[in-house]
């Protein structure tokens, strides 16, 4: 009996330490601020990376409450992938709390994927708090525009390669494979949205400017008078009037915004309110990058019929 225990003990002592080491050493721990970036990092990293997201797809990406679990995730991170353009400045508090030298500002593990992105809506005048939740560096909601995927994934490849240079070729290969699939999907989306070129839509929050521009639609007005502040009846009346005059048929609503109000406004204006995924995972069926854009394109086409 005693010998059996000794042998078992010796076996465990030898095998034991090898087990966790075998699984942990292989994967790069990446934390992304938003689920879009998590999805893209997973495409590029493949099975070399283990990726988590700080925000959930249904949340409002401007204001995420920092919780201890976020700091714990960041503490273990080798890389932090962020959207930049001040969308995820809320993450800075968690980063400081996590006290992880690899991902502080300026460290090689900090990947800001907005480098090289052609930013839209850069304000030309001075901005301040009285204008609501305006984005001073330009509209940061570029991540779910498929045309931006090449730039974003290139930044992610560079970031991953800084940490693990020996795997750069694999990351590049993964990226090319993903972009090829994306190109196929892009052809499908362009076909579907072709008849809607030139159409004007109303949006709740100016979340959609990149994807609208990409496919030739445009934003006529926002339901929000100033972002982040509930709309006044005067502003809503103006929007309803504009929708009737220009025959605008669709109001696009983010999953985290007030669908009930948007539906009321749509009814008054003879239009339809449709919820699109503002991030991957924002609505049911939008659980991957291509899946989310698929959902959005289909929903938009259905609503404009």
């Amino acid at each position, binding site marked *: 009996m005693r010998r059996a225990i000794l042998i078992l003990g010796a076996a465990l002592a030898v095998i034991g330490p090898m087990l966790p080491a075998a699984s942990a050493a292989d994967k790069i721990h990446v934390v992304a601020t938003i689920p879009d970036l998590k999805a893209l990092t997973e495409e590029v990293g493949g099975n070399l990376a283990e990726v988590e997201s700080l925000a959930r797809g*249904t*949340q*409002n990406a401007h*204001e995420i*409450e920092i919780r201890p679990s976020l700091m714990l995730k960041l503490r273990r991170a080798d890389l932090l992938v962020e959207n930049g353009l001040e969308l995820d400045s809320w993450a800075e508090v968690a980063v400081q709390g996590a006290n992880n030298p690899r991902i502080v500002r300026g460290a090689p593990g900090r990947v800001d994927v907005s480098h090289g992105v052609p930013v839209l809506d850069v304000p030309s005048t001075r901005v301040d708090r009285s204008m609501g939740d305006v984005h001073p560096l330009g509209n940061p909601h570029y991540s779910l525009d498929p045309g931006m995927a090449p730039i974003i994934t290139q930044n992610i490849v560079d970031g991953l390669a800084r940490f693990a240079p020996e795997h750069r070729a694999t990351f590049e290969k993964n990226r090319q494979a993903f972009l090829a699939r994306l190109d196929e999907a892009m052809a499908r989306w362009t076909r579907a949205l072709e008849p809607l070129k030139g159409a004007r839509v109303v949006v709740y929050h100016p979340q959609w400017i990149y994807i609208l521009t990409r496919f030739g639609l445009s934003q006529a007005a926002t339901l929000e*008078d100033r972002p982040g*502040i*509930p*709309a*006044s*009846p*005067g*502003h*809503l*009346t103006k929007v*309803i*009037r504009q929708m009737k005059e220009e025959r605008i048929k669709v109001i696009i609503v983010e*999953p*985290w*915004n*007030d669908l*009930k*109000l948007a*539906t*009321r406004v749509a*009814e*008054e204006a003879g239009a339809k309110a449709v919820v699109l995924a503002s991030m991957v995972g924002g609505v049911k069926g939008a659980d991957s990058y291509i899946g989310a854009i698929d959902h959005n394109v289909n929903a938009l086409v259905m609503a404009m019929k």
Partner: protein
Amino acid sequence: MLGDLLALLWAPFLMCLVLTGIHAYLGVHVLAREVVFVDIALAQIAALGATAAFLLGHETDTWESYAMGLSATLLGALVLALTRSRRRHVSQEAVIGVVYAVSAAAAVLVADRAPHGAEQVRTMLVGNLLAVRPPEVAKVAILYASIGLFHWLCRRPFFLISTNPDAAYRDGWRVRLWDFLFYGSFGVVVTSSVRIAGVLLVFSYLIVPALAGILLGRTVAQKLIIGWAFGTLVSVIGMAASAVFDLPTGATVVCAFGLMLIVLWVAFQAVRPASGRLTPLA
């Protein structure tokens, strides 16, 4: 432009009138019982119930959401009825205060797990008056009219227990049962109102018109009529201000209540300076 504005605002305005009708009446009771915070606590519990339903995937206008809000409120009403003692203790206010704070915090926690939680928490606070549609106004009006009828039929025990509970005990009324019926019907009203107007506005509609009635009126009928008139006046002022000054509607009406109460009190002081009472004399 004015026509468009009215088209948007008429249904919310009608809803304000419906809210005034039932809430001013219930407010007279609440002030007589001197448990002012009970309504804000029950409103917050109703909001917590609705938020919990939200977490389970039931949007605000589903029957599941209403059922959960109502169950939570009735449970709260039960607790409040049971904690009333024959001698008026300060401790019930303490219980009510704790219930309010905890349910508000719990709603934040629940909302954190839910899809668009932050928006939900804000809607529960200031409501969503602008999104009200005409069929909703009709449904709520019918519900509140039924409750009003119930209270009219049982007006003797309800008013006796609110104004003179000792006499009620002496006369043999089952005070705890009537308390539960009162808080229960109160809970039904509050659960419906909170999802439309939010906790702050429900509180305002409950307390401020009744305060005006008690300040200026002597008999119950007078208090009610003055309360209804005051509530209607403030609704008009609040909605007009929101349209003219381009402000969010729910919060503007709450502030209008505050402002008009100050105006009323000043006028009251000017007319009858000797008896500057603000508390009800039942």
